[in-house]
């Protein structure tokens, strides 16, 4: 049996995918209109990483999971009240923007600094998890930079599978072209794993898990320090992709007819 892991999951907050987003220019550059009003979710890719972390920790006794997240404190609290019912974790909260219009390097520095400050973290057993992609326009680059700041050279992206061998080797499956995976054997932690979707379903809500998480969640939120991420990267403008929407109500069309129409529309 391998030694326990210390798994740190970096996860941002993104607007609920069903919301209509509108970038507007504020005094500090682009931001999302009504960002604090919009319902939010944990970034979907990072959420998969959290599910995988929880699953792995359960399978190797003694392992611990930390969730390190930066967002406006009220948004973070809102999102965590949903996530905290699903999986067990210890929260490290940073109070900062989550609009996506920030310098990712500064965010990465802040996250790395927070991880370095985690009490009891065994860096030699560290698995740094996060999303390979991001709904916050960070395109997953933040995770790689956090890994660099922490001096972790073994980095894997688009991970779907992590198997732990009895000898402690990490077997990592990264997505490649054509639905195939590149399989790597890694000697062990520390390592960075940017998850694709993984293979785990969203866990059901568990009141017991929620109550257990609450013991650390609220104190962590109350202690969350404001993180200034001004300056650095400058955004001069932001706009939404052009969208075209036309609605017709058509009854009883066959699947072939619908497919043909979509294909014709794509062809232009």
């Amino acid at each position, binding site marked *: 049996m391998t030694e326990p892991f210390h798994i740190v999951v970096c996860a941002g907050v993104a607007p609920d995918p*069903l919301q209509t987003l509108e970038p507007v220019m504020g005094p500090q550059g682009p931001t999302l209109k009504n960002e604090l009003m919009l319902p939010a979710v944990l970034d979907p890719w990072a959420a998969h990483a959290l599910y995988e972390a929880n699953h792995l920790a359960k399978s190797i006794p003694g392992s611990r999971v930390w969730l390190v997240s930066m967002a406006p404190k009220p948004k973070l609290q809102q999102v965590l009240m949903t996530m905290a019912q699903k999986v067990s974790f210890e929260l490290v909260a940073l109070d900062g923007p989550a609009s996506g219009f920030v310098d990712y390097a500064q965010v990465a520095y802040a996250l790395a600094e927070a991880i370095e400050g985690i009490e009891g973290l065994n860096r030699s057993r560290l698995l740094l998890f996060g999303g390979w992609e991001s709904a916050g326009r960070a395109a997953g680059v933040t995770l790689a930079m956090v890994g660099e700041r922490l001096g972790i050279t073994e980095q894997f992206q688009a991970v779907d599978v992590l198997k732990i061998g009895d000898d402690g080797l990490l077997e990592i499956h990264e997505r490649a072209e054509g639905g195939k995976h590149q399989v790597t054997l890694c000697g062990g932690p520390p390592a960075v794993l940017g998850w694709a979707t993984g293979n785990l379903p969203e866990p059901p809500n568990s009141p017991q898990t929620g109550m257990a998480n609450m013991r650390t969640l609220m104190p962590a939120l109350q202690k969350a320090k404001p993180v200034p991420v001004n300056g650095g990267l400058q955004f001069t403008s932001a706009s939404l992709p052009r969208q075209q929407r036309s609605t017709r109500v058509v009854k009883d069309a066959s699947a072939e007819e619908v497919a043909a129409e979509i294909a014709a529309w794509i062809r232009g």
Partner: protein
Amino acid sequence: MERERVDVDVVCVGFGPATGGFLTTISREIPLNDGTFPQVICYERADDLAFGVSGVVTKGRGLRVSFPDLNPAEIPMAAPVASEKVYYLLDPVGASRRSATLRAADAALRVSGSCKDEAFELPYIPPFLEKHGGLVMSIGQFNQWVGQQVMMTGAAQVWPGTPVAEALIDGDTVRGVQLADQGVDLDGNPTSAFQPGMEIHAPLTVIGDGPVGPVGRQLDEHFGLPPGHEQREWAVGMKMVVDLPEGCTLAPGTVFHTFGYPEPEIFGFLYVQPDSVASVGIFIPSWLENPVRTSYRYLQHYLLHPLVWKHLQGGRMRSWGAKTLNESGRRGEPYLVGDGWARIGEGSGSTNVLAGSGVDEAWTTGVQLGKAVLELWREGAPFTKENLERTYVTLRRNSWVEEEARVAEYARDGFHRGVVPGMLGMALAGFSGGRLHLPGLPEHAMPTLEDFFSGRIPPEELAALKKQAETHGEALHDLVMNRCGWPEIPYDGQLLMSQQDALLLGGKVQAAPGYANHVRFRDDEVCGRCGAMTCVEICSAQALMPGKPTPSFDREKCIHCGACIWNCEFHNVDFRAGAGGLHSAEN
């Protein structure tokens, strides 16, 4: 079935203004003076605390007691009431179902020259209706704001996305609640991911799950209503949140109350919020006895009324939503307390239809229960029926909520006889302090489509419209309204759009997997015998569609408004706890 069990000190069902008031009150006193830290937990069905719906303009009396230094600017989308007007809307299209009396009144108003934009502004706002000094708000943002403050105290846990299936009733004592099963198919059968809903046991269960909450209705079925009480008056409230067009001159805090259009029985509102946003909506009351009543089509005609449209034209829908209102108020009040349980908010009959107010009343009932619970904790007294009556019920009976609810108790009975008697009855009750009112009529079955449109649409033509609706999958209410002369809605894709587009773009509705369908029909044969299918016509989200032997239900569309429950005169709709629904935080 063996279920896991957790024990806490207080478990709350539903998070709305009433539970917000309750949790705000007790969280300020936790830990208690004796150093104990009661564990207080609240389960909310919706996926987020901000997914409520209400057209809120409120005097905010109860809120200001809880938050003496309340600055509306701290709550997104809130603004102090700046101006308030009441309009009687005339019918600009000639399709409204108006009595001869109303038509004569309309003609007289037009001839007198006192109308502008097909609307007559009342020179005076009755004191029982006016909201001067109050607030306009988004209930979603308000709930979110309250929830954040409560949670940050660390004294209470509020968990969204967790439907409560039922109360655990032992004899006449409520021992706690059972959460909904997860990992089941649409019929509730366990799948490989089955997770039985946990039992949450508590000495006190607080029920604040609104007018159609399954736990509140379960208690109504178990205990019945107090003698002489009845829950007969309902309404569907449907609203849009609109980005006002550039150049719109309406100031934040502007409040319009309207009545008279699209049908005389329909009340409407327009409340202007900060940042050029407005909430616009209507109420379809149960006394509009049209079996093909539809909130959505009527809402669009309301938007197009000249008084409203001149402000909205060029605007854009941001959000859409609907809810059911229990308008029976004090007369529909259930038993408020029992051994181990207490009810607060709209489901406890706190909504005041005469004042057109519910949020402040609900909040205040929650605060009252909070004070009572703190008192009983201090005394070390158990949450028995007697102790809760001595504390919570006494506080409620001696408050302005009760006093004003008494005035409103019979205020709307006149509407059973028509719109004009209804308005007179409201005025009579309001100005006499509830001592006078116009009597209502005994409860009766909704008229058939043929009876309702007798003299306007021949039976054979109605039969043809029904056939057309069935054959082509069209909404019967649309066909009937077209036939009555209502113009087609000129969709612009911005503000005027199909109901499904409003659902998708404004309501952003979705349902989590792993839960059973929450709308079922108890007896297929009953549905087979029902000719009206009012549940389908009134459905706020077109989640119910015609089907055999029962209407089909698509929970991906359902917004949990509960209109199907009270529109089924056979009580054949089994509306259970369910996840999902609206995903808009602005309503």
